[in-house]
């Protein structure tokens, strides 16, 4: 019989080492899988993890891909720390794109420099609005925000689909389901010429720093941590849990909305039925990979983005199937969770009867 027994004291260093360990083990297992697929494992791992970023263009694409993941994950991490489980960032992202992108479509002749700041505001508001619904349902009716936020994702993506098939369809687009292209004033400025790195990437860095300061230096950051770790103590000293639910869902929603706006006003340049390959869900993995810490999330986002780029190159140059990307992400998450479990628990062999002696 195998049992898990909580460690009385677990190593603080392991909390931060476990993602590194998980990545190393993913590389080893990945190499073994590649070998079974008949590829030279070193060649394959090189293609997967180095080739995508061995030139400046590759690095720029990595930043573009990591931008939405990092922005969303920082927002989600705030909630996760306070035990608020917002699973619907994908929907909040979509609403942000609809609100902010809608403005660009309404003013499609505009050349005003005010358009972009206004799109930022509306994008964040759209996401926050979509986060406010689960917050209201949770605080008023005690409805589980995992379910409500997740289900609202489908509402948001269907709403976007309705808009681009109907009222917002490009009048010159041959009836194809896509909006007009945004005007130049509604497109994010590129910060490095010749790449797709846009203003949103700079905002992502800002979000990481601001998130870090918020968590470590502010009163509300302290409250978040206490509410999550010791809810009864928090109640005792008068921290209001409802306020935390509202704060984290609004903040998480606003950041996801901003990330959605950056996608449509950045690399895509218009509204179309699908604007995100599941960034809102992948960001959940990124948040945990980064230990719910904004700086860790920055690295987690880059690594997760790398698995996408590597998966594409593995297909192009090695002829490996697309499933390899998902496989790598799955293995990584598996090892991360396994490392976490083993950091907090130890494995005991032996029957239950032996418990008294070992404990």
């Amino acid at each position, binding site marked *: 019989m195998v049992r898990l027994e909580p460690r009385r004291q677990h190593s603080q260093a392991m909390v931060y080492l476990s993602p590194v360990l998980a990545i190393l083990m993913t590389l080893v297992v990945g190499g073994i899988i590649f070998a079974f697929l008949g590829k030279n494992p070193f*060649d394959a791992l090189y*293609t997967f993890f180095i080739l995508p970023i061995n030139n400046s263009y590759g690095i720029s694409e990595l930043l573009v891909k990591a931008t939405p993941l990092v922005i969303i994950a920082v927002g989600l991490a705030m909630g996760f720390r306070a035990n608020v489980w917002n699973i619907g960032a994908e929907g909040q992202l979509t609403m942000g794109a609809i609100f902010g992108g809608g403005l660009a479509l309404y003013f499609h002749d505009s050349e005003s420099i005010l358009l972009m700041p206004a799109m930022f505001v509306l994008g964040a508001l759209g996401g926050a609005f979509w986060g406010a619904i689960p917050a209201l349902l949770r605080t008023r009716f005690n409805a589980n925000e995992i379910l409500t936020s997740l289900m609202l994702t489908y509402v948001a993506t269907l709403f976007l689909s309705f808009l681009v098939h109907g009222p917002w369809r490009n009048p010159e687009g041959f009836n194809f389901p896509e909006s007009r*292209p945004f005007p130049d004033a509604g497109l994010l400025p590129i910060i490095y010429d010749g790449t797709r790195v846009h203003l949103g990437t700079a905002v992502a860095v800002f979000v990481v720093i601001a998130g870090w300061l918020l968590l470590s230096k502010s009163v509300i950051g302290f409250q978040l941590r206490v509410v999550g770790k010791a809810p009864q103590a928090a109640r005792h000293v008068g921290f209001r849990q409802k306020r935390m639910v509202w704060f984290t869902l609004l903040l998480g929603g606003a950041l996801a909305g901003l990330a959605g706006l950056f*996608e449509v006003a950045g*690399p895509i340049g218009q509204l179309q039925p699908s604007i995100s*390959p599941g960034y809102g869900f992948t960001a959940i993995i990124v948040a945990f990979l980064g230990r719910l810490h904004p700086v860790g999330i920055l690295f987690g986002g880059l690594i997760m983005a790398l698995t996408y780029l590597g998966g*594409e190159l593995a*297909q192009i140059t090695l002829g490996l199937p*697309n499933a390899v990307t998902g496989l790598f992400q799955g293995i990584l998450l598996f090892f991360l969770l396994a490392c976490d479990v083993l950091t907090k628990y130890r494995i005991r062999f032996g029957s239950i009867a032996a418990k008294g002696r070992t404990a």
Partner: protein
Amino acid sequence: MNASLVKRTLAAVAAVGALATGMGAAQAEDVKVGFVYVGPIGDHGWSYRHDIGRQAIEAELGDAASTSYVESVPEGADAERVIRQMAQTGHNLIFTTSFGYMNPTEKVAKQFPNVKFEHATGYKRADNLSTYAARFYEGRYVAGVIAGKMTKSNVVGYVGSFPIPEVVRGINSFMMGAWSVNPDVEVKVVWANTWYDPGKEGDAAKALIDQGADIMVQHTDSPAPLQVAENRGVLGFGQASDMIKFAPKAQLTAIVDNWDSYYVARAKAVADGTWESMDTWGGIDTGMVEMAPYTNMPDDVKALAEETAAKIASGEFHPFTGPIYDQAGELRVAEGEVADDGMLLGMDWYIQGIDAELPK
């Protein structure tokens, strides 16, 4: 295999030394063809058939050509990167096989004037960007004729993907075929709003059969609707590839996409240096649209279907021959005339008699 592995390893080592080397060092005279697919190659429909075309290039050109592909590429921000990565890794001919890749293909084509691009089902062209598509509506007319003969309930269920001209044109063509032999047929359309989602497609088919449909037509890419037809004991048509193994008792025929000869010809043109930007819209006559063997139908229906397909192929008959009225009763194609390609490509209206409204 081994030689290429060594080559790749060497290239990799070289790249470590000089960080910027990358993979751009392919030999100029060899054709390196890249494909971008919207679905998995195992969809048994659209992407699967494109991949068969890719394999045809390898078979025909042998060592003179190498191919690669990326599957399930989302029609969003990622497409541009995948296409650009192909251009950067020495591919000199790149096929992007979904409408949603149009803008990213155009963008990358501008940045790589020496690479040839081919975009399926779109309308933007450039000196190094061709477009190509197939006249599937011809096959749909033949399917309509068969359906008109085979239906007992006079209700046809149609699983649509998106109400874009390609699909609307198919519905119109199908119904004109059906009405040419049976004026009492009516069509019920469900929009799945996806190209590939077996669950959704199957649910749509179930709903249609529950509404009395005894013929299942689909313009989505998985075999799911046809499989539902098989299980519920009604008839149907395969989409994009011969789906007889999924529905041996239900499939009447399938409208098969055959890109093989086009892809081989274009790859050869790049090898010879004769490639030119053009727009190709091939039908039954060019072999781009093929009818799978006619099954599960009496001989007279089979003969009628064969005859119809032959007439379309020879140019003797065009499915969109006037008079054609739209739902508002406006005459769109005059008696004895034939709809021009411009009208067909932008078709966003149902013909008169279809009792449904296009989603607006």
